């Protein structure tokens, strides 16, 4: 697994491909095109790229209008601004009228690193999944990101795509299927299921390998790349088969994947369950790896939580 690519880079690549295939695809950015990687598209298709300046609210409203007139806009900025700064615009101009806008938000999560808490979106999944009509993708690697970007064009309605800054391992090869709303069994196991999204899928797989070697624990990993619509069937099946569940996300433990899974299991098949994610805190400046470790989201943290949940399994 030597290959590494950030999901934002994969997004930038996919946009250019899509631009060639579909002339209705247009891209907007808010003075961050080099960071969100929409810059690639802007060079290939300058007439279909709009830099809206540092004015995210206006960007979302403009994207809504473009969609209303038949275009397929991708609007990009950092996740913290794409969801927080423009919440009312995304809610009332994009989600409510169910417009075909893809909000592709980069630099999500704590792995933003040194820029610190003002730039670390740890609540964006919660904010987006609560909106009716919204599809929410949190891709786990480069190839899956490209597939999600393609899916966003096919889906008739608003889509939120959560992208990250750091380079992360490529998990999926050339032959894989990406079905929106259908989780991927990334690893088989029978004692416990780790349900993860985004870069936490890599950490979950690492934790599962450690658990196998060191503890003889057989952990399945479910890649929940679509948070909404949620694949409730796979969650219930995993709970039934393994009898315990741990969720792992680079997001507040409040309101994100862990909450969505808890809501599902609580109403259908309650089993011992624990959540790995950002505690109810703002982040801080630091190196991405240090922050992941310090706030309890590393593979060894997942490993420890799995052991704890197993003590509660009957």
């Amino acid at each position, binding site marked *: 697994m030597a290959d590494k690519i950030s999901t934002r880079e994969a997004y930038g690549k996919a946009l250019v491909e899509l631009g060639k295939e579909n002339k209705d695809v247009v891209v907007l950015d808010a003075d961050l095109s080099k960071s969100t990687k929409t810059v690639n598209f802007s060079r290939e298709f300058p007439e279909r790229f709009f830099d809206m300046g540092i004015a995210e609210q206006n960007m979302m409203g403009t994207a809504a209008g473009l969609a209303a007139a038949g275009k397929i806009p991708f609007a990009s900025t950092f996740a913290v601004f794409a969801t927080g700064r423009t919440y009312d615009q995304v809610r009332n101009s994009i989600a409510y009228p169910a417009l075909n806008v893809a909000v592709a938000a980069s630099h999500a999560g704590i792995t933003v690193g040194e820029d610190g808490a003002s730039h670390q979106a740890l609540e964006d999944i919660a904010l987006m999944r609560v909106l009716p009509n919204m599809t929410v993708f949190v891709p786990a690697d480069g190839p899956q990101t490209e597939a999600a970007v393609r899916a966003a064009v096919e889906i008739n309605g608003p889509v939120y795509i959560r992208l990250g800054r750091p380079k992360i391992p490529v998990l999926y090869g050339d032959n894989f299927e990406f079905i929106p709303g259908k989780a991927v069994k990334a690893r088989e196991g029978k004692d416990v299921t780790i349900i993860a999204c985004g870069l936490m899928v890599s950490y979950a797989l690492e934790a599962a390998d450690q658990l196998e070697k060191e503890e003889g624990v057989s952990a399945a990993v479910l890649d929940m790349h679509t948070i909404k619509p949620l694949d409730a069937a796979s969650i219930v099946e995993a709970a039934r088969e393994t009898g315990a569940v741990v969720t792992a996300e680079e997001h507040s433990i409040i309101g994100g994947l862990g909450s969505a899974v808890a809501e599902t299991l609580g109403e259908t098949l309650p089993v011992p369950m624990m959540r790995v994610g950002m505690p109810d805190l703002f982040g*801080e*400046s630091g190196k991405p790896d240090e922050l992941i470790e310090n706030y309890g989201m590393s593979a060894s943290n997942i490993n420890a939580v799995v052991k704890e949940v197993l003590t509660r399994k009957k």
Partner: protein
Amino acid sequence: MDRELIANLEEKAKKIRRHIVRMIGEAGSGHPGGSLSSADIVTALYFNEMRIDPQFPQWPGRDRFVLSKGHAAPLLYAALAERGYFPADDLMTLRKMGSPLQGHPAMQKLQGVEMSTGSLGQGLSAANGMALAGKLNNMDYHVYVLLGDGEIQEGQVWEAAMAASHYKLDNVTVFLDHNKLQIDGFTRKVMSPEPLEEKWTSFGWNVQVIDGHNIEQILRALKQSYAGNGKPNIIIAETVKGKGVSFMEGEVDWHGSAPKPDQVEKALQELA
């Protein structure tokens, strides 16, 4: 004007620029361009203009400075350290885990930071609130704000601009760092905020245009901004992004990249 004072401030600005370059070099990330372009303005404020006391950072009567363009945090930290809020050695902890010197200013973590910023476009609103409180409390402190010329593309800035003149906040003085660059290129090309003078005038502000690297002009403009005619004040400072380091000057790529060790050395020589 006092020649010696001006010479001293110029020396201080150089020292602050040296800190900025060293800190960002050590951190390995950060924003040198916009920190260097505002260095003369912030030096004039912290080392001549503002009524502040590092021994009593929370003194209610103090003047306030809001760094609305929060990515220029290294500049603010350098000024605070030089002014005695904390030891200059701590500057080298910028952006490291556990440091109070966060990538963007965090008021809960560092004394002297008046407002947490980093999400652009929000500082003037907060400053207006401080200024309103000053009026309500019959206190004569002044509130200073530093805005970026790209930052004013944010709609919230104009909501705040309207409110400041509506509430006659003549105890607010904004410096607009007119360095003509943002991340994606020239502000005029990305989303032109021009014409600046006319816009701010029509919003009911006293407007002055100065050379933002000329300490004498900065001090004179500040004096003028205490006219107390019921209007908020904006000083449009014509600046050069990356000012003081030849290879950074006017170069968009130095907005948010850290200098490598040899570049730090070269920059320090130029700033000696």
